[in-house]
């Protein structure tokens, strides 16, 4: 099955009480693409998802198109979408099997075919053994699988997931995330995935729509939003970011902790940003920048160092060195020139879907 493309034109949402949950926006999603809606609580992710689903209607003038067809006036039951709710919304009066078969039953799929497809879905989601259980006898992870199976059993053209993993513990979340990723790639379905977890967004999205207070803050590939955030909000919301304020002069930037070479054409005060992994730890002697360890956090796979004395504010650097660091220890820092950017030059929003997004292979 291949997914339908989705196009939103001028879609906003003002609730009856006057809350503007979503300001008017345009969004295009290619068939088979996985788009993640990411943003802090209350920014309008669910509202946008429900607009696409057909559970809310956009403010007058807004248009929703699936595969070129205008579906704005169509209720959800005639949009052929699959939806996974944060609370799962499984039917307590039915067994696992009946839950998964429900959509097929409603569509009057003949019993034989229905049984076959239900069994296939249960198999695929590894819940065959739970067929006859009531849904209130399942664990959170099992419920999540049933909810997914139920949503894709009807072979929707668009799959909508609203924070499907939020209610689960970290380990399970990680495992299901991998499974969902494989599933979405395998199905080639158009998927919109809501989350406020940026790691989840990076892992699953072909593109990420970062939202803030009912507006789109940036649309781009995970690499775009990570390495080239369009504004301070995105830079801060996604991953950890370091800011260094210095003065550019003669092809170098000078700051309290030292100087390092940078563009020859720049002059005057500059604010440079970089991610913790773009900095290397060096011996203090001869390093372009020098500072002191303010604190060190051992995280297992790496050590996160907070280093003071380089810029005006401390910076965060990750290192894989296995030794122990002490507060006050002097360290040297080298910056990977590729990892340095300023907000002014960051990517303009990229509203067009990426070519060949659907063919991306599973990592």
């Amino acid at each position: 099955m291949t997914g339908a493309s989705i196009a939103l034109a001028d879609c906003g949402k003002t609730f009856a009480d006057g809350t503007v949950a979503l300001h008017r926006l345009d969004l295009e999603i290619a068939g088979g693409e996985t788009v993640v809606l990411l943003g802090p609580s209350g920014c309008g992710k669910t509202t946008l998802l429900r607009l696409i689903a057909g559970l809310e209607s956009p403010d007058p003038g807004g248009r929703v198109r699936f595969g070129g067809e205008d579906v704005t006036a169509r209720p959800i039951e005639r949009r052929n979408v699959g939806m996974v709710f944060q609370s799962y919304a499984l039917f307590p009066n039915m067994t696992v099997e009946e839950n998964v078969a429900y959509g097929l039953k409603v569509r009057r799929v003949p019993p034989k075919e229905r049984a076959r497809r239900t069994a296939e879905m249960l198999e695929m989601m590894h819940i065959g053994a739970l067929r006859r259980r009531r849904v209130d006898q399942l664990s959170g992870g099992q419920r999540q699988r049933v909810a997914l199976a139920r949503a894709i059993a009807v072979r929707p053209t668009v799959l909508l997931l609203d924070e499907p993993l939020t209610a689960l513990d970290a380990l399970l979340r990680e495992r299901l995330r991998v499974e969902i990723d494989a599933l979405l790639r395998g199905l080639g379905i158009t998927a919109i995935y809501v989350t406020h977890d940026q790691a989840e967004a990076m892992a699953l999205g072909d593109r990420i729509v970062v939202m803030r207070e009912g507006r789109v803050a940036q649309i781009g590939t995970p690499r775009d939003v990570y390495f080239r955030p369009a504004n301070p909000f995105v830079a801060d919301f996604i991953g950890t970011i370091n800011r260094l304020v210095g003065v550019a002069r003669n092809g170098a930037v000078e700051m309290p902790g030292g100087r390092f070479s940078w563009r020859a054409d720049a002059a005057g005060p500059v604010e440079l940003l970089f991610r913790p992994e773009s900095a290397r730890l060096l011996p203090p002697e001869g390093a372009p920048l020098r500072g002191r360890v303010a604190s060190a956090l051992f995280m297992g796979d790496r050590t996160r160092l907070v280093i003071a004395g380089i810029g005006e504010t401390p910076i965060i650097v990750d290192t894989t060195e296995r030794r122990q660091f002490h507060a006050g220890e002097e360290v040297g820092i080298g910056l990977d020139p590729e990892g340095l950017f300023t907000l002014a030059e960051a990517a303009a929003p990229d509203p067009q879907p990426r070519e060949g997004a659907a063919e991306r292979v599973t990592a």
Partner: protein
Amino acid sequence: MKRAGLFYAQLAFTILVCAFMVVPVVLSILAGVTANFFQGIGSGLTLRWVVQVWGLYADTIRLSVIIALACLAATLIAGVPTAYVLAKRPGRVARLIEELLVLPIAIPGLAIALGLITTYGAFEGFRKSWLFILAGHVVFTLPFMVRAVLAVLLAIDFRTLEEGAASLGAGFWQRFLGVVLPNCRPGILAGSLMVVTLSLGEFNLTWMLHTPLTKTLPVGLADSYASMRLEVASAYTLVFFVILVPLLVLLQRFGQPARRAERAAPVAATVPERAPA
């Protein structure tokens, strides 16, 4: 030692209160199966009075059962959709209706009866038929049905369940019949038991609304107290008890729909920290 003393004092008090309430009931029931109450139990036990009650009042019993079942049907048909609509619509109008629904409980039965008589008394055919009593019972019991179903609906997050069903392609009726109704069964059950019990036992309203040809069980009971010998009246009470007590027991068992529903609904487990019912 002190503590034990307090305990026994409380126990004695509790037993006394229970006895105060239970003894008259037991005596009354005994009277119904005693050959001659004034000679006491020594005169022997008999079912003669029960048989006599059946002969005299079978019609009232039949009518009571018919009215209770008809009342149940009417409150189901009117009450369940009402509860659904009230639960679905937020906003002031819905809350106002919810409040208004309590009025019949707060207003004395006599006043409701008077209202019905002044409004519909002129329609003689209606006034004289048992349907008139039915109307009174429906007005009186409908709020109980609505409230019981509403409580469950609000506890199970039926909106999300319905949205889930809709996302799978189910139209309104498929959702209502296949998902909403089955999941508010505990509320419908509790409401039904309540309605039947209340209708069977209703006296105030019914006494005002009845005609000599439309007497229900409690009205007949009052008649028999006034005009029959004590043993017959007591036997009648016994019959009433036999019908009502099983219903009361069931009501006790299934009468807390909201809590039961919450336990049954899996969504409850995933929504962090619900206030306990």
